[in-house]
């Protein structure tokens, strides 16, 4: 049984169709890129998988179950939003994660914070934007989840931290976990991806192994993406 499956998934807002009859199956032990221009439905898809939206039609299965409190305990989501409470310190938010997620690995979190020289006692509201992004990523990756959804994990971060983040994603790799990365910065992440899913206007137009695609097309994933989505 695959760890992530979408069947005939449709989400519409009145007349506007964000996702149109999407079918997709992803296996554990893979790092998958969810790629497409703005408005292609990437964020809608991820929100649906996380139970933040209700679909209009179709089904979503995470490890065989539909999105619920049960699936939330095995899915770790990094949204493209600053969701941290200003008033908490790093220590506070770690305690919060420990309180609610049984799979949170405090040791791992503290190690990563140390590697990036982030002071545990600092208030989140007082940190720079870049540092807050790093904290959010660390919290997400410190969970030993079965499915990770990372929405633009490296977009607002400096190049050195980007490398660290990609290495963290690689080092976090578990054969029984799925990592889905949704991003614009394809060139930066393509070496880390097993598979690529191209989304256009709410439909999946491609789902392929990246190495196979590169071999077939004789160009990088980024190059092929630009070709496919040329305006």
């Amino acid at each position, binding site marked *: 049984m695959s760890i992530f499956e979408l069947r005939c998934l449709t989400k519409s807002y009145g007349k506007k169709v964000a996702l149109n009859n999407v079918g997709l199956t992803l296996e554990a*032990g893979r*790092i998958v890129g969810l790629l497409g221009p703005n408005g292609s439905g990437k964020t809608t898809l991820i929100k649906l998988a996380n139970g933040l939206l209700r679909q209009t039609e179709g089904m979503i299965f995470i490890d065989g179950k539909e999105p619920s409190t049960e699936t939330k305990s095995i899915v770790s989501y990094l949204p493209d939003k600053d969701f941290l409470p200003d008033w908490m310190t790093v220590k506070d938010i770690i305690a919060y994660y420990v309180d609610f997620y049984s799979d949170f690995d405090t040791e791992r979190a503290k190690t990563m914070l140390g590697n990036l020289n982030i002071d545990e006692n600092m208030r989140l509201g007082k940190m720079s934007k870049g540092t807050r992004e790093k904290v959010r990523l660390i919290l997400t990756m410190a969970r030993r989840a079965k499915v990770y959804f990372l929405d633009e994990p490296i977009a607002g971060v400096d190049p050195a931290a980007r*490398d660290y983040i990609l290495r963290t994603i690689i*080092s976090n*790799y578990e054969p029984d976990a799925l990592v889905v990365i949704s991003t614009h910065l394809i060139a930066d992440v393509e*070496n880390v991806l097993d598979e690529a899913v191209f989304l256009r206007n709410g439909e999946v137009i491609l789902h392929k192994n990246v*190495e196979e695609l*590169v071999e077939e097309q004789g160009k990088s994933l980024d190059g092929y993406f630009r070709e496919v989505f040329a305006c």
Partner: protein
Amino acid sequence: MDWEFKKGVPIYIQIIEKIEFDLLSGKYKVGEKLPSVRELAMEANVNPNTMQKAFSEMERMELIFTERTSGRYVTTDQTKIDALKKELSKKYVDEFFDTLHSLGFDDNEILNAVNTKCKGEE
């Protein structure tokens, strides 16, 4: 160690090339234990599955072998390494000739250039 990958060529092929390079340049000695797939993947900033694929291919090529409990090792068979050396030298020489031919050099001019270089190095 910096891994540089070029576009348009599958990563696993480029990984194999680099490791072959390291084998011949002496970075990895005959019979030496290789770092784990995960370690190398992190170093190269690539997907562990891709690194795994490269390793599997090199195993098929009999350049490395797996010891079930302890990991992966460079082959102890020197003939394999010698064959690799020969293969790569042919490949780079062919590339060299192809490049210079496309620049308009004929074989004699190429030989002269090579001789000059060798004399210069003496």
